[in-house]
């Protein structure tokens, strides 16, 4: 039996409905990158995309009781993000005009151009993806097989255990070991990024 992502999320949603913010926090961590990508497609600005996704998560938590569990949590939050992004675009034109009048006339401050996403950000994203894929490829055969069957084919631990002919507990450990290696690689990458930033400082 395939593990349903919907059921997994619904478990967390039910806890969030009962007021458990910790469960909602895990959903934020899980979907934030994907939703920022969605918002970015509308506004073409990373900072604003982050703000819009932040707003979308806040709205969704406030109205979590209205979420009918017949769709997935992701579909629901995706829709909220799209609507928030569209509304932003509609109101942005008016706000830009008001801001320009306010600041340029009364305070003599310039309006900076809207922050475009830089190739630097895109470079970091593809670098991180490469690191994750390289780590996966560097795993031992057993670990790599278990993790690949889980991540690419979405098989349950029980199904994987049947295929590779070992106990379910072993599958669980192998998948964990694989993720541990990837986790270490991501941490190393982040340390490296911090180091290169520190070099800018005199």
């Amino acid at each position, binding site marked *: 039996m395939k593990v349903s992502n919907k059921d997994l999320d619904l478990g967390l949603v039910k806890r969030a409905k009962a007021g458990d913010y910790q469960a909602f926090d895990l959903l934020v961590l899980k979907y934030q990158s994907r939703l920022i990508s969605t918002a970015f497609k509308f506004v073409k600005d990373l900072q604003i995309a982050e703000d819009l996704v932040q707003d979308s998560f806040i709205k969704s938590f406030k109205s979590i009781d209205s979420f009918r569990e017949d769709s997935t949590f992701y579909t629901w939050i995706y829709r909220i993000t799209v609507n928030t992004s569209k509304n932003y675009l509609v109101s942005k034109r008016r706000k830009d005009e008001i801001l320009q009048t306010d600041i340029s006339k009364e305070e003599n401050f310039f309006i*900076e151009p809207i922050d475009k996403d830089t190739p630097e950000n895109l470079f970091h994203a593809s670098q991180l993806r490469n690191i994750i894929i390289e780590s996966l490829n560097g795993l031992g055969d057993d670990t790599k097989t278990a993790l690949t069957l889980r991540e690419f084919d979405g098989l349950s631990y029980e199904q994987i255990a049947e295929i590779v002919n070992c106990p379910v507990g072993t599958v669980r450990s192998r998948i964990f070991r694989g993720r541990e290696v990837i986790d270490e690689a991501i941490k190393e990458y982040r340390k490296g990024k911090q180091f290169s930033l520190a070099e800018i400082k005199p």
Partner: protein
Amino acid sequence: MIKNKVMKEKISALADGELSDFETRRILSEISSNPEYREFWKNIHQGKEALENEESEFLDIDISNRVSFGLDKVQLKDPEQIKKYKYPQASYIVASIFGFCAVIIYSLIPPPIESFSDIASQRIVDAIDSPQGIEVLNNSVSSLGILQDFKSNQKGTLANYRVPNSNKTFKVSLYPIKEVNKIGVGEATRISYIKSKNGTYVVSVSGNISTEKKNQILRNANFFAEKIN
């Protein structure tokens, strides 16, 4: 160390929906209270996202703290949103009992020791109330920008900078949160909230520089605020 591994293995199983309800209940509070476990959960999903979606551009971004801060603010403003009990009367009774207990407990415990961020925040508050506000901003920006213009008063400090050797411009400001509308919604902004005894303050960086540089300026703001006498 062993406990750490066992916990992480459970987190990995949770991400795959392979953990029992009982174990899930136990593990949720552990994840939220331990930054290492939270990061592991986040990295698992970054890994999944990278493998599933080749076009994903923003893998290394984390706005979860901003979301939780925003929700705390929302909940304080709108306590009716916290609907945890099925029967309203019961929720009032429980809230009353809880409130009474909280007052008693609060009066018995000693005041907490100030953390680094509290001390740093206080320094920023002092700096805002003095001509040193611009000094905090200048030090925070350091060699990343040349000061073009600034305005400072009791409501906050706002400064415009230009990146050396390019025409890129950016703005850094220091405002009490009640003045937060001074930071325009249309302006791409990276902000950091600073708690203090006198209230919450906002350091903001906006403009045509990278996210990393904006983050660096925000970190510097905390660091240099501590250096102000």
